[in-house]
């Protein structure tokens, strides 16, 4: 049996000692040290001097973040009064035009919130406008990231998180839109009920599962309420945290420029500069949301009336972010199969479920597809100017054009009445436009990008136009050019030139080789160092040379 070892009574471990008293360097450090010793504040604030680059387009994501904060604040107020119940009640509130009308408790409490709760209508309108801004700012932010190539390695996962945030924001917005149980939102729910039922084979079962039986039932509003105030906000919060943590970990991308490399960041520290800037911007976003809520009416449910499955209204549309699905369904011809007593509603399933799936899948896989096409495996912390990636920019604009066409089709009745054209004409036009307009948009955008590249080369070689017309002694005229700064010349020429992969039968197959060639072709070659030197010599000779060349009609000289 083991025995404890004997202890030497003279060992220093036996002595009772008090830890030395720590002297704080100044009085203010006291509380900070107290917190640091308990939760590791110093480590937590290690990033406080983190440097962020400055550009307006980097603030688009912040608009979305601040709108989310506004949504949380106003949403808490709304939950105090809103009753997510489909129990039928008779309205007895102050709004006379609904008095005595049977309606769900959800709608009655929304009317109550709007007319009888002090500030309720204002908060409702701020909440709704902030929701519109939230999704719009996310979209704008996503487009910025796409067009500047900020999704490339190492940020592909953060891009996917962003796509997840975007898709969840759509569900969140739709759930919120449905809660008041007014005539428009009920029609929207009926629309989604149709989408669910159009899923082949399992559609009806999914519908019964979601609605607890036949549409509308009495469960969907309480369920959507849970989704709207608990499930999706929780997921959004988690994903936003991950999104921002990765942003700190990767560091922010920056525009190329003198002294800006893949390994550094030029800008200002988070504290105190961005604390002030971002804090100030939060108040601006909040102010805009409040001003919109105060002065612009949104979703006047008291005019729409309570939802009644027997009623419908002209001009039934979802909020803007669901408009593209609405449009796709409006313009799809009535393709339907009837097989063995079952109905296969391709006219709903393909444009509804299919298009949403296609959009989010295409967005999520794009970074990997582009990397596969270009064979680019390096890290990128410097942004692409959109013109220097003409195919990507073209694809992005083509996607926007397709989205825009579906979007417009979602308002085909409004277009017909506002512009005095036939509803059928709008619908037939859109059926063609959703395919043709993106192709045209791609071609036009790529040409514009290449022209801008040429103008960049021109600017590097010949300087900027001064607008000063010089007349030579011979009588010839020419415009004087001023050389650009070396910094600007660097910014215009630092981008890598894409090179097409050569098919080798192993990693690079024929398809990949062709796509790669398509991606790289047409790129305007950057001026070489020799060309820049020659152009500098040329400029040093001065304007007389230009004038002489013009005068003699010498076209062999490049200008």
């Amino acid at each position, binding site marked *: 049996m083991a025995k404890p070892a004997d202890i030497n009574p003279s060992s220093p471990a036996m002595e009772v000692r008090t830890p030395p008293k720590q002297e704080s360097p100044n009085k203010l450090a006291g509380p900070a040290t107290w917190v640091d010793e308990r939760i590791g504040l110093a480590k937590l604030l290690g990033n406080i001097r983190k440097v962020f680059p*400055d550009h*307006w*387009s*980097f*603030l*688009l994501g912040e*608009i979305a973040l601040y709108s989310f904060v506004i949504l949380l604040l106003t949403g808490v107020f709304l939950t105090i009064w809103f009753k997510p119940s489909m129990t039928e009640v008779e309205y007895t509130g102050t709004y*006379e*035009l*609904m008095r*005595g*009308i049977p309606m769900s408790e959800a709608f009655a409490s929304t009317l109550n919130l*709007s007319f009888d709760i002090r500030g309720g209508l204002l908060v409702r*309108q701020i909440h709704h406008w902030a929701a*519109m*801004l939230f999704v*719009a*700012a996310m979209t*704008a932010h996503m487009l910025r990231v796409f067009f500047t190539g900020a999704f490339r390695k190492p940020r592909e996962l953060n891009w996917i998180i962003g796509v997840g945030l975007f898709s969840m924001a759509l569900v969140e917005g739709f759930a919120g839109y449905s809660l008041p149980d007014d*005539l*428009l939102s009920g029609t929207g729910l009926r629309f989604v009920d149709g989408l669910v039922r159009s899923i082949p084979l399992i559609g009806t079962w999914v519908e019964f599962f979601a609605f607890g039986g036949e549409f509308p039932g009495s469960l969907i509003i309480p369920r959507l309420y849970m989704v709207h105030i608990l499930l999706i906000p929780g997921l959004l919060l988690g994903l936003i945290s991950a999104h921002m943590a990765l942003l700190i970990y990767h560091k922010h991308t920056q525009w190329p420029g003198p002294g800006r490399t893949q390994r550094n960041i030029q800008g*200002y520290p988070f504290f*105190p*500069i961005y604390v002030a*800037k971002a804090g*100030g*911007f939060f108040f*601006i976003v909040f102010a*805009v949301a409040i001003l*919109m809520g105060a*002065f*612009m*009416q949104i*979703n*006047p449910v*008291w*005019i729409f*009336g309570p939802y*009644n499955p*027997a*009623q*419908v*209204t*002209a*001009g*039934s*549309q*979802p*909020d*803007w972010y669901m408009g593209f699905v609405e449009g796709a369904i409006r313009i799809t011809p009535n393709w339907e199969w009837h097989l063995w007593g079952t109905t296969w509603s391709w006219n709903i399933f393909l444009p509804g479920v299919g298009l949403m799936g296609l959009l989010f899948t295409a967005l999520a896989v794009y970074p990997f597809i582009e990397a596969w096409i270009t064979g680019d495996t390096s890290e990128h912390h410097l942004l692409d100017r959109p013109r220097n990636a003409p195919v990507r920019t073209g694809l992005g604009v083509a996607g926007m054009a397709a989205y825009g066409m579906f979007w417009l089709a979602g308002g*085909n*009745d*409004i277009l*017909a*009445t*506002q512009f005095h054209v*036939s*509803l*059928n*004409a709008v619908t037939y036009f859109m059926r063609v436009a959703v395919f043709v307009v993106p192709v045209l948009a791609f071609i036009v955008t790529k040409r514009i990008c290449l022209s801008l590249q040429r103008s960049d080369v021109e600017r590097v070689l010949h300087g900027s136009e001064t607008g000063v017309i010089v007349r030579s002694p011979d009588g010839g005229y020419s415009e004087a050019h001023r050389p650009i700064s070396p910094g600007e010349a660097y910014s215009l020429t630092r981008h890598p030139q894409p090179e097409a992969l050569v098919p080798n039968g192993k990693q690079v197959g024929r398809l990949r080789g062709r796509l790669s060639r398509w991606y790289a072709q047409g790129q305007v070659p950057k001026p070489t160092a020799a060309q820049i030197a020659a152009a500098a010599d040329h400029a040093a000779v001065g304007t007389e040379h230009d004038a002489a060349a013009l005068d003699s009609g010498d076209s062999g000289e490049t200008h």
Partner: protein
Amino acid sequence: MRFLASAGRQSLRRHKAARPVLLALSLFLVGAVYAAVAPATTSSAEGAPNEQLIAQGKDLFAVNCASCHGLNAEGLAQQGAPALTNVGGAAVDFQVRTGRMPMGNPYTQAQGQGQGKQNTFSDDEINALAAYVASLGTGPDVPTEDQYSPDGLSAEDVARGGDLFRTNCSACHNFKGAGGALPNGYVAPSIENTDPAQIWEALRTGPGQMPVFASGAIPDEDVKKMIAYVEQVNATPSAGLTLGGLGPVSEGFWAWVAGIGSLVLAAIWIATRGARA
């Protein structure tokens, strides 16, 4: 008459003043009867139409309508003009008063449902036309005010009118009567500022693409409630700028233009400010 007899009939009858007095009395009697009867016959447009009014309407019809609808209102199929023998006076009153009829150019205007044209007929002329067409057969007559006037309804009645409106009208005319699109270039017009009599007439006669809502389906009492609802819902103050009142489409448009637009401007402003500690 006893005093006449006792005082001597003969003397009174033979009195010098007897003839002039009798003449004056009979003239007075004729005048009084005429005064009592004559106005009633001249204002018969509100009651049963008389022959004279119908004749005037027939003349107007021959000049303004017969080229398409035929001299006896039998209709001309190749002109696309329906027979008007059983449409009633309400249809004429609606079509002419709103400027839909007569059409300026049937070949172009038929697609646009003949809207936006100014009515150039006087009330009397419309009454005469309506009286003539009503005399040709059956059909709803021009309504009287007690059939359509929304006065004197309770708040509950008007709210009930809103429910009826959403059930029967809003599918085409929008939730507050702002109008909407129909297939093939037709539109359901805005009824936000439409005269109550015309709403009643449209329900009963079903002009253009609109179905007929007969009094068996929607009695006059319910029509009044719906008319009152449309009037009141459009008179209700809005919660800020209505942005066209077209629902989520215009809201989304303004969210991008006003909201994101102003915030991008603010972002540009913030980004151009450097660090001036």
